[in-house]
């Protein structure tokens, strides 16, 4: 609310309070005047009553005293007019009475006299019934009648003997005396009351507007109701007393009132004018100045000693400071814009974090390298919020250790997650921001996106690995090729002589009818050697032949069963306890059935040979999600399986002699064998591995010398 409004409001409020106070004062004054008026009226009324009583006393005395009198009783019966003239006629002026009437008990007029010379007053204007009523209730009566001569006050009494002053005996007659309320009487009363007396036809006082108005003007109106014989109002006598005291009182009250009103109005006007001059106007000027920024409005107030002078000087100082500030801000903004321009044009993400790692500044580069808008970063993200899952705690630990030491850091390599989910690599450098006391406020620094470089590095590494592997495969393939060619060549060159030898042996077997001594044994040895040589040739051929496979969804349980059937004739078979555990609801595997049987047979025979004196062979088949990241399971292009991929597992575990650590490195090499010249060609595991490799499968060997060997094969499930 404006101060002017407040002042106006205050003024109105004061005026209101004053008006209310004035109203109460008026009422109080009115009631005071009214009280005084009523007191005066009551006094005058009492006086008027007393005056009427006093003035009516002779009439009353006549009516009362002449009626318990033996002479009067006698007059009723004698009707002695002489007595009446002597006694009654003379009494008239004495008692200031205008008329007298004497009636007998039958209300027959016995005597009548009046000094008004009015014939109509000869007899009272009552009927027989009215006369009967007249004294029926009381033996003394006081009432008024209207006559041709004017209003007449009448007093009447029953006539009794002198002894009966209490009028207990029956009335002997009736005596009535009247007095006219003529002009003289009325003016006498007026003079005595110092007022003006009027006779008015009877009205209800309240409905008489004249009377009411008179009372308002300091005139006291007293009114008496005059009743007829039957107590009915007949006339009203009204006394108007012009009270000077009341008028003076009323006038002085009004004068006081107007004086007070005028003085207060003057005081208010003065107050408003002064408030306007001293407060509103300076305030208005100050507000104009502050609104427009033009200090010329308050230049006149500059030299004032009072508060507004101080304020105007302060405003002037503030304005000059403001101008300086605006200038400085403009310059700073320019500098900031320059910095911002440079920062945004930079390739690096420039940032500032508080001591909790929350970003409080960032250039726009973050949008490009992390995918977040500035308003998603500033005040919302910590540096570790972009960390890749599982690395957050480590990063926090390392970073806050540096924070605690308030050290600079340079080219700190870290992995982060882009908003789109991709991994980005940053090299981060930063310096601590300290306050004057050396307390850490936060860090400022720069992140360089090295993802491309990193990617190139990774690609290079992958390419190198791939190259190495391809090289290995090439070497292996070359080896195989060489072995294949060798095998093919050797097969022909060796099998022909073997064919000759066996035919020769056959011939000798048939020809030498009698098997003398060692001949049969020698022939058998020759045949056995030929078979062994042939077996080696076959193995070599198998090895070189493993070049193409036909993958089909197959039941691994069936393959295991077939393989076990095929090795049933092995001499060790009967000494070995075979436990087959294949998960019943195992999905089909994607394999070349014959090749896989070949693999399993190779492995089973190896296991049998490691348990020459018996043991236990457990063969398991189940499927599971791959978890352990080991050779061949991973995200590299060359890995056959991805982590979390579901795959078929076949395990062949024996309780045989086991494989030593030195042997372990060579077991997959072609021609490596521990079985001696009578064992195999040393190609079984090598061939098996090649077959599995073509299946995109894996083989792992775990062994402990003296305890046994466990071979794990991982195969692809036929898709879903």
């Amino acid at each position, binding site marked *: 609310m404006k101060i002017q409004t407040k002042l106006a409001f205050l003024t109105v409020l004061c005026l209101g309070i004053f008006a209310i106070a004035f109203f109460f004062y008026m009422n109080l004054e009115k009631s005071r005047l009214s009280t005084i008026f009523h007191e005066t009226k009551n006094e005058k009324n009492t006086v008027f009553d007393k005056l009427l009583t006093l003035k009516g006393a002779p009439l009353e005395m006549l009516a009362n005293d002449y009626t318990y009198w033996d002479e009067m009783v006698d007059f009723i019966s004698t009707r002695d007019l002489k007595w009446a003239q002597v006694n009654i006629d003379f009494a008239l002026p004495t008692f200031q009475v205008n008329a007298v009437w004497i009636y007998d008990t039958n209300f027959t007029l016995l005597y009548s006299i009046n000094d008004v010379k009015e014939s109509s007053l000869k007899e009272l204007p009552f009927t027989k019934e009215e006369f009967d009523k007249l004294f029926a209730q009381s033996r003394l009566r006081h009432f008024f009648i209207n006559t041709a001569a004017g209003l007449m006050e009448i007093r009447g009494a029953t006539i009794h003997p002198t002894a009966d002053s209490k009028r207990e005996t029956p009335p002997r007659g009736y005596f009535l005396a009247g007095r006219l309320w003529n002009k003289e009487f009325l003016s006498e009363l007026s003079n005595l009351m110092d007022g003006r007396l009027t006779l008015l036809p009877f009205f209800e006082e309240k409905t008489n507007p004249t009377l009411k108005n008179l009372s308002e003007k300091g005139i006291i109106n007293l009114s008496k109701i005059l009743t007829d014989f039957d107590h009915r109002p007949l006339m009203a006598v009204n006394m108007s007393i012009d009270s000077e005291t009341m008028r003076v009182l009323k006038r002085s009250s009004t004068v006081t009132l107007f004086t007070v009103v005028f003085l207060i109005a003057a005081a208010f006007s003065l107050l408003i004018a002064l408030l306007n001059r001293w407060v509103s106007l300076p305030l208005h000027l100050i507000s104009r100045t502050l609104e427009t920024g033009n200090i010329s409005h308050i230049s006149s107030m500059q030299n004032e000693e009072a508060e507004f002078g101080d304020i105007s000087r302060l405003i002037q100082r503030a304005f000059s400071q403001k101008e300086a500030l605006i200038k400085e801000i403009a310059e700073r903004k320019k500098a900031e814009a320059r910095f911002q321009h440079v920062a945004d044009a930079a390739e690096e993400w420039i940032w500032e974090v508080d001591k909790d790692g929350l970003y409080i500044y960032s250039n726009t580069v973050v949008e490009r390298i992390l995918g977040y808008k500035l308003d998603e970063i500033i005040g919302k993200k910590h540096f570790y919020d972009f960390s890749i899952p599982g690395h957050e705690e480590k990063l926090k630990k390392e970073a806050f250790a540096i924070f605690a030491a308030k050290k600079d850091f340079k080219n700190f390599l870290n992995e982060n997650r882009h908003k789109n989910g991709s991994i980005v690599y940053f090299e981060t450098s930063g310096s601590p921001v300290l306050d004057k006391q050396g307390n850490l406020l936060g860090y400022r620094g720069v992140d360089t996106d090295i993802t491309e470089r990193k990617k190139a590095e990774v690609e290079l590494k992958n390419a190198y690995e791939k190259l190495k592997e391809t090289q290995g495969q090439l070497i292996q393939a070359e080896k195989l090729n060489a072995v294949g060619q060798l095998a093919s060549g050797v*097969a*022909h060159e060796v099998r*022909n002589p073997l*064919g000759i030898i*066996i*035919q020769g042996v*056959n011939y000798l077997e*048939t020809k030498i009818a009698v098997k003398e001594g060692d001949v049969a044994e020698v022939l058998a040895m020759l045949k056995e050697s030929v078979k062994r040589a042939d077996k080696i040739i*076959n193995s070599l051929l198998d090895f070189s032949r493993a070049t193409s496979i036909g993958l089909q969804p197959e039941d691994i349980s069936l393959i295991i069963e077939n393989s076990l059937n095929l090795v049933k004739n092995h001499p060790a078979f009967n000494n070995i306890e075979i436990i087959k555990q294949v998960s019943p609801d195992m999905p089909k595997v994607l394999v070349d059935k014959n090749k896989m049987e070949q693999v399993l047979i190779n492995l089973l025979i190896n296991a049998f040979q490691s348990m020459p004196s018996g043991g236990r062979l457990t063969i398991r088949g189940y499927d599971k999600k791959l978890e352990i990241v080991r050779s061949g399971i991973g995200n590299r292009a060359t890995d056959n399986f991805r982590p979390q991929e579901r795959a078929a597992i076949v395990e062949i575990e024996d309780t045989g002699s086991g494989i030593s650590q030195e042997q372990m490195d060579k077991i997959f090499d072609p021609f490596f064998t521990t079985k001696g010249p009578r064992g195999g060609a040393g190609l079984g595991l090598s061939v098996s591995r090649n077959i599995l490799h073509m299946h995109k499968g894996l083989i792992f060997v775990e062994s402990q010398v003296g305890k046994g060997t466990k071979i794990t094969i991982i195969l692809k499930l036929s898709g879903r």
Partner: protein
Amino acid sequence: MSKKSILIIDDEADFCKLVKLNLELIGDFTVTIATDGKHGLALAKTLKPHLILLDIMMPHMDGFQVLEKLKADEATMQIPVIMLTAKGDDASKVKASELYNEEYITKPIEALELRSKITEVLERTAK
């Protein structure tokens, strides 16, 4: 029933000799030997043997060339052939069995086994 005549064409003279000895010893056969393809073809035409044992790996003319010529000639077309090989490669096997619908035996082979194979082929082709 007279003896069945068998022609063996193989560059390994010793092998041929021993097969002849064995087959004639344990079976009811007369075996004629040819140690090269050309000689073999000529003998096949003139002798019209009941069965020819034909080696694949031979100098000058290999077994498949000989087989082709045998099958091309009306005189020798009907004679069943058992291919003999020391090579043991799948390609040969496929070629022999699928292309010419002929039997295939890998060396070394025992005499008894060879005899039963010959008997089997002869019985089948006689039908």
